[in-house]
């Protein structure tokens, strides 16, 4: 079974978009993260509270963005999700 990821909690993150990046303030830890695309988009895909696999996040994003071939893009989404889980910004469902 591929791992499923979900938001840390519905209001865990305060986000602020700057010209060239996005800032994420993680309320539970008090840490500020500076991120660039596709991290804000991946987090937005989890916004409705669902627990999704990397493939499902990719499918969600592919409706809005041109991500290229799925066999290349899905492992990248998976790597980002694992990284975000390590930072505490998302968690394994």
């Amino acid at each position, binding site marked *: 079974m591929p791992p499923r990821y979900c938001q840390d909690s519905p209001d865990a993150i305060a986000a602020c978009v*700057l010209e*060239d990046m996005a800032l994420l303030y993680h309320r539970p830890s*008090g840490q500020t993260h500076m991120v660039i695309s596709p991290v804000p988009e991946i987090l937005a895909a989890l916004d409705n509270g669902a627990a999704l696999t990397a493939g499902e996040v990719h499918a969600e994003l592919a409706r809005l963005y041109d991500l290229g071939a799925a066999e290349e893009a899905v492992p990248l989404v998976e790597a980002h999700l694992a990284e975000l889980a390590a930072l505490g910004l998302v968690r394994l469902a």
Partner: protein
Amino acid sequence: MKHALSLKIGPATFRIGSAWRQPVEALAALYADYPAPSVEVADFTVRLEPAGPLRRWLRPSIFITGDHGLADAAPMSLSHGLLAAEMGMNLQMALGWRRHLLLHASSVEKDGRALVMTGESGSGKSTLAAQLGERGWRLMGDEFALLDLATGMVFPFPRLVSLKNRAIDVLAAEVREDRMGPLLAGTAKGDIRHLVPNGDAIRRMDKGAMPALLLFPRFGHQTDVRAVGQGEVFMRLTQASTNYVALGEPGFDALTHFVRNVPARAIDFSSGEEAIALVERLWEEPA
């Protein structure tokens, strides 16, 4: 403590105690025009103590402490007692102030709007603010700019301006001799002389202003002006703040609001006159 003095600088009040008379007398003379604190209890205490049992008399050596202290702060010579007191006050602000987002930056005001300048020690931000303070701008502070968490206004902290090395002669040529403190030669940062901010800066030290321009000055380079992206501005300002992390989300909100609303430029210059002309020009440019 044997000798003591209370001071109010901007919104902060200090009680400075010293085992020796000299640092307190020097401070009292230089802060003579500042209003006396209206409250009995100071925000911070600063203590200048002998570094060891005999060091009050024998090669007198000062250890700076207070509400907040650094365990490994090196003792200083009594001849630098004024500097020790100033450093003690800065230390208390840097480690203990929570009412504003504290930025290690100089700031000046004109027409109700504030110019904030931040950079490493030696960048010229302090000298530039002091010079502008003598040329039609109101000096708000040479060391800390206090960003209000609710309104986004910058509030002054007009302590004595700490002039170092070449900056000493530059300002000494522009102001009355009685506004200059004693020369403190051979400190860890070279020669230092303190400058008393002018009457306007002291009278209006409770008056904030909305920030209108952020500059990253750099002295000693060919004249240049560069735009700085918001991401870089945010990163540099978190580094320039001593209490960003401690303030939590209100600090995040205040800083992001500042970064999104205040235009930022990096400026290089090789002389004070050049820098002043550059600042005046950028100030007049529409954001």
